[in-house]
């Protein structure tokens, strides 16, 4: 991974958010991905979302594994803490960090190789324990770092740049997440920032595992004719199930969705996500209906996008594990270390 620093000179007139930071303060180093990579657009959406939510960067932990997608945390929130771990094991690192400090905002960025092949088990169990984090899967159907092998999300019949067709069925991460009981499931497209930013904001506010699959074309290995993850194919086949907007608790923003068929879902922290049905036969709070809808459109060759499912009242990992309300990192050592007296009590049990 190479790493190019950006000059940190800001124009004095740049707008600041509630914590006194400009949008540029939420940027990271210069991207070393290919020009036109979908991942860079997702990075831009993340920067926008964190800035608009007024989140202090040092309260954020950016977690990632290995792959082109996993390089991107270097390109946003330079003042956040980061952990670029090993391939497919980011959810475990995030679980431990969350258990030790439940007040962190944890964002994981992963790809289809990192999440659906080597890390499929870890992704599944992060969903199962409803780990409180935002999980962004940057999905391009191909391995970029190792130069163009099909990934597990490649559609059958989709062609590689060299012309060979993928023969195996794809693992659809959204259907997987719905089946495993994920409490927040969305799919978006890197080229649709207007849709992506509110979904990311809602995902950050969601208590529990917020899963966002973002179709993110690989301009180098998977943006040719015959690919089902190219810009052209995705733009053509995309159908929006819901339009969403996110309203943080502390700030009223103008909702540019007509209130006629808007459905509000109140999230744990008091903020609201507003969903307007685009498809008449779609209900984002009904898991089975969402699954059926995504499948039905898939048979027609269409990709459903939007916030597909949310259940705002599920228990998250902290409730399951019974972690203390106060982050462990803030508990003074002499409280965590019980000392000789507690040891005497422990010893008494052995007698």
């Amino acid at each position, binding site marked *: 991974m190479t790493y190019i620093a950006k000059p940190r000179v800001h124009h004095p007139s740049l707008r600041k958010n509630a914590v006194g930071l400009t949008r540029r303060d939420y940027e990271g180093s210069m991207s070393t991905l290919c020009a036109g990579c979908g991942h860079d657009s997702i990075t831009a959406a993340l920067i926008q979302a964190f800035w608009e939510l007024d989140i202090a960067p040092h309260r954020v932990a950016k977690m990632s594994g290995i792959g082109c997608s996993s390089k991107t945390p270097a390109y946003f929130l330079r003042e956040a803490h*980061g952990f670029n771990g*090993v391939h497919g094991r980011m959810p475990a690192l995030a679980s431990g*960090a969350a258990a030790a*400090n439940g007040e962190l905002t944890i964002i994981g960025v992963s790809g289809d190789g990192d999440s659906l092949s080597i890390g499929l088990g870890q992704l599944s169990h992060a969903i199962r324990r409803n780990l409180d984090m935002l999980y962004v899967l940057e999905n391009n159907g191909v391995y970029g770092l190792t130069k163009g092998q099909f990934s597990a999300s490649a559609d059958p019949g989709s062609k590689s740049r060299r012309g060979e067709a993928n023969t195996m069925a794809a693992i659809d991460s959204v259907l997987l997440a719905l089946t495993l009981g994920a409490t927040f499931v969305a799919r978006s497209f890197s080229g649709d920032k207007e849709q992506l930013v509110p979904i990311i904001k809602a995902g950050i506010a969601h208590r529990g595992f917020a899963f966002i699959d973002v179709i993110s074309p690989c301009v180098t290995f998977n943006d040719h004719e015959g690919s089902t993850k190219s810009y052209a194919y995705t733009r053509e086949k995309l159908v929006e199930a819901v339009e969403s907007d996110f309203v943080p608790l502390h700030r009223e923003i103008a909702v540019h969705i007509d209130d006629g068929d808007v459905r509000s879902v109140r999230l744990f922290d008091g903020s609201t996500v507003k969903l307007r049905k685009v498809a008449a036969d779609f209900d984002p709070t009904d898991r089975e209906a969402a699954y059926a809808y995504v499948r039905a459109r898939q048979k027609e060759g269409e990709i459903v996008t939007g916030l597909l499912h949310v259940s705002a009242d599920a228990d998250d990992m902290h409730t399951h594990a019974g972690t203390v309300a106060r982050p*462990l990192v803030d508990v003074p050592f002499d409280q965590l270390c019980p000392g000789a007296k507690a040891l005497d009590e422990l010893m008494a049990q052995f*007698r």
Partner: protein
Amino acid sequence: MTSDDILIGMAGAGGDGVISAGDSLITAAALTGYHAILTKSFGPQIRGGESSFKLRVAKAEVFTVAGTLDVAVALNWDDFFRFGAELPVGPKTIVIYEADHPVGPEGPKFGGVRPAAMVPAPVAKIAKEVAGTEKAKNTVVLGLMAGWFGFIPDALLTGIRKKFSKKSEDVLAQNERAFLAGREYAEAHPLAEAQPLAPLGTDASPKILTDGNEMCGAAAIFAGCSFFGGYPITPSTEIMQYLGRELWKYGGVVFQAEDEIAGVGAVVGASFAGKKAMTATSGPGMSLKSEILGLATIAELPLVCVNVQRGGPSTGIPTKSEQSDVFQAAFSAHGDAVRPVLAPTTVADMFATTVEAFNIAEELQTPVIILSDGDIGQRKEVVDLIDTSRFTLIERRKPTSLELEHYQRFAMTESGVSPISEPGMPGGNYLASGIEHNEAGAPTASGAIHARMNEKRIKKLSPLKSRRDLFEVFGDPKAAIGVVSWGSVSGVAREGLRQAEQLGVSAKLLVPRLIYPIAQQVYDEFFASLRGGFVVEQSHQGQLYRVLRMYVDVPRSVESWARSGSNPFTPVEIAERLRDIAMAAQRNQSGNHEPAID
């Protein structure tokens, strides 16, 4: 005549209550203040199969149950012989057997050994008569032990009352009657060969009854560990179970992960977030954890990883102890990674070793591996109370506010240890990563930086090699014959050394608790006076011996004495080999005086 040291073995069918009898006996020993060790063994069934125990009770500290039984109890012969070599009967053994299962005309299958006594006892008959049920057979045996071997009747009776107080009064009364009937039977049928247990003086210190896995868990709590991540695997599971019961009381979290990899991954994540964290596993789980241990090494994150070794490779013999993961602990890392490896020597020492592992991990910002073994992990032992005043606890070095102004997570320092921040600390942000990085934490592919960082990560561990307190020498430091032994086998070696002294042989024993990196100087000094000896360990290849030869000039006369797991060493064997080496050294000495032929 009385005995200061009795070794009892007992076997029976599932439902005979053999294990329960062993627990009662060791509890009575603990309550009274004797030292004791109990090991249990089971048939392959998850539940309900044959079972056996071996119990040693002594006035002084003991380290092993290996050796020939003083008392053997067979509730039926088939099950007794299923445990074969685990319950060795010798010429001095008193064999007590269920009278319902008489010895056939061909005699018992002791391979030609004639035990000191063969004593039939109508255990089932007594149980039925006084308690109305054969379920009380094990309690009758306790009565026999009290009657024939003076096995602390008061404490046994107290134990029986405590144990059955939760059940109905009838059951309690039945068991009291069964115990007394067994004792009366023994008194009415005196056993001339029996040497009863010598009573303790009034100065016996209070003891606790525990095992190595529980000691590990208790020590982790004491050391301030607040996160445990792991996956159940025999024989380490009890560490997670213990912490699952206890850790939440101190604000900590136990995370039962979906697999071994996620277990250690979460530990790395918790350590990244600023907390002391631990995982525990056994051989196959260690293999799975290898990649993430490499991550912890390069990200310089403290953690403790316990490997309670079992017979391997693969599933191997999960229920039997082995010392065959030295190579894995030292060398399974990819890249130029050095990780401290510690080994406990006894059940009580598991407490000290675990505290030490946390201290080293936090001070040097490294994963530390504890190589426990199935024997230390699972054997029940009566040990002295842990004196906590002798421990100091070390915390990781956090950045000062000055250092946070231009924070460099991997700053080059003289010691190689850099200040470590945690998420939530303003100004302390950095990228923890598995990719090579510069002092600020930024990814790099520079060869110069890679070399400097490797140097930093390895150099910071070198103070360990001068830690004399991580080594113990027993016996005469100037002796010409010496043994090196580690882990649970070192206990057998200590007793072997004692017995060798009784045979008139002066020898010494080096027990390392730091297994890796190798402290060359300590070994050089130990080997300097030697003219013969061996490195004794429970692995087929003699793994510690082989690693020593990589780093130390091991004298030719110091050999490897290695044996696969489930084939225990005994103190007698070690003493006899020491004697043989001493005799051979004498012969060679005279050989040196022969005139040259040409």
